[in-house]
């Protein structure tokens, strides 16, 4: 077995592989060059590729993402970093009004092959403005693809697809997973956008998770063995394209569905998945669809408070237990 690598290392590895493959791939962002990123997710890139491929920017999120868009429209395949996903709000115009609409409102004249990488999510006690899971901010706008890997190998494989995509992709790297370890990605590893993965097979309840909630769901599934509840865990891996088929085919067997989301219940991605399953898989269900999502409050600082707000293993265990007994 190959040596395990961290999720953090996988980000750098995924970027480096694409930059070696295609000289049009250029990175820009705050502190990503010689400093190698505040999360050390661009380690080695500046050394290997130099300042012409790895650009340090001012703290100017609109300029970063706007420049990435202009470059993408004119022959470059930029990878822009927004340091904390909370800062997407500083350049939301580009995610809401510009990037997703360029091709459409020009009648197909413009192609936008860009990636926006950002460190997302909580669990590290960074407080209300540096801990949010904001995938739902992006999910609400048609025209953006969304990847949110949960393992190092998927980081590399989805990064390959994101960079090679001729459509804009927002790539969420979960802060809480950066130190986690997993199998390294094989050479030429490419995970297509929009293919969910059944990461644990089970018969009683389907749990659909994304990024940090995947290990949470897997831990819950492990605990529930002792209660003789068999849980199937699906890692969505992407929100757009959304792999509804994998979810529906699982529910066809389990007849029970729980969605575990780190973004707030209010407007979270699980609501869309739930509505699709209710609409297209109603006859498959033996119980209501349940959502374990973040509470609808700002993220608090203290661990004890943060745990109260975001999904935890205990919350998922309890939700599965109740649903199995429905």
């Amino acid at each position, binding site marked *: 077995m190959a040596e395990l690598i961290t999720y953090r290392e996988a980000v750098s590895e995924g970027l480096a592989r694409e930059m070696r493959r295609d000289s049009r791939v250029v990175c820009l962002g705050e502190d990503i060059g010689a400093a190698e990123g505040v999360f050390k997710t661009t380690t080695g890139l500046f050394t290997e590729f130099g300042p012409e491929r790895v650009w340090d920017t*001012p703290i100017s999120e609109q300029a970063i993402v706007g420049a990435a868009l*202009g470059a993408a429209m004119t022959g470059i395949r930029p990878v822009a970093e927004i340091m904390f996903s909370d800062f997407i709000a500083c350049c939301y115009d*580009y995610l809401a009004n510009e990037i997703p609409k360029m091709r459409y*409102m*020009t*009648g197909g004249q*413009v192609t936008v092959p860009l990636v926006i990488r950002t460190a997302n999510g909580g669990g590290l006690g960074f407080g209300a403005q540096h801990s949010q899971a904001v995938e739902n901010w992006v999910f609400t706008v*048609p*025209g953006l693809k969304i990847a949110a890997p949960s393992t190092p190998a998927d980081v590399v494989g989805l990064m390959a697809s994101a960079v090679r*995509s001729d459509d804009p992709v927002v790539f969420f790297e979960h802060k809480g997973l950066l130190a986690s370890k997993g199998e390294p990605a094989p050479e030429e590893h490419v995970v297509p956008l929009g293919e969910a993965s059944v990461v644990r097979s089970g018969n009683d309840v389907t749990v659909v998770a994304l990024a940090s909630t995947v290990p949470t769901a897997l831990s819950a599934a492990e605990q529930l063995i002792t209660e003789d509840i068999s849980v199937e865990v699906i890692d969505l891996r992407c929100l757009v394209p959304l792999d509804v088929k994998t979810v529906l085919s699982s529910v066809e067997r389990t007849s029970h569905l729980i969605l575990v989301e780190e973004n707030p219940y209010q407007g979270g991605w699980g609501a869309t998945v739930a509505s699709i399953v209710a609409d297209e898989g109603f006859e498959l269900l033996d119980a209501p669809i349940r959502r374990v999502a973040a509470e609808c409050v700002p993220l608090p600082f203290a661990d004890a408070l943060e745990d109260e707000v975001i999904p935890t293993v205990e919350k998922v265990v309890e939700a599965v237990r109740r649903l199995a007994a429905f």
Partner: protein
Amino acid sequence: MTVSEDTSVTVDAGRLLEWYEQMALIRQTEKAAYDLFMSGLVKGTTHLAAGHEAVAVGASAALNEDDYVFATYRGHHHAMARGATPAECLAELMSKATGLCKAKGGSMHLTKADKGMLGSYAIVGSHLPIAAGAAWSAKLRGTQQVAVAFFGDGATNIGAFHETLNMAAVWKLPVLFVCENNLYMEYTPISAVTSVAHPAADRAVSYGLPAEIIDGNDVIKVYDTMTDAVDQARAGEGPTVIEALTYRHYGHSRADPAKYRPADEVEHWMQRDPLLVARERLTSLGVDAADIDAADARAADVIKAAVQEAKDAPYPDPATALTDVWADGGAAWRN
């Protein structure tokens, strides 16, 4: 930074007459757009550029075919100056399938990508970073292309303007920032809401950028200034901010009769109509009035035919609403 008043004669009469005709074509397109609006054939809104023609035509003449241009929702003149035809512009305004953007964009989003006209943007100031990105791309690819962002005076008070001037200056990007200062941000005098007299040029100093304030109604002056700035950008010397003073002949948008503008101010600027300025210059260069009138007449013929062509064109197939989201041409977001 100085207000330049003299205009050196750098173009011959023949070239100036070509520019005059281009400006006449834009002017008459805008008049046609206004009339079509009033007759109910153009929906939504329009932001007409009549009065701004010299900025677009003079600047465009200073560019190469593969340079990039980014415009605002008041952008018909820039699309046309880069080669969009009146028929495809008017068809877009009239929601026709033959429009520049297949009727998906409308008046505010005219785009002619194959001519380097990479869009008209309706979020004020949003395209400045995008233009800088195109310039960055040219630098990365080692081409000699430049990018031009045209924007209004109102855009100088939004964050994207300031973020972009700074980053473009630091990275020495081949980008030109051309402010069409028509004295009003929508309905409010720009002077009433801006801390400096020249909203674009005075800010350039903060970012260590050179700036020029010019008569934006003098097509030769625009051309000369742009030519110098473009040369500097191609030489790797970075951006220039050009503040071109101009005036719109219509209100901010179709709903605005512009009654907030003093009559004497309007009169002053009407005397400085870029078409009049160019006509006077042509006359001083010895061009017969009949030849200038003939250019107007040719433009009128083109517009008459373009209006008819746009009127005759089909509306889009409703099914095309669900195309062009993704690079594969489709709109599927799930399986």
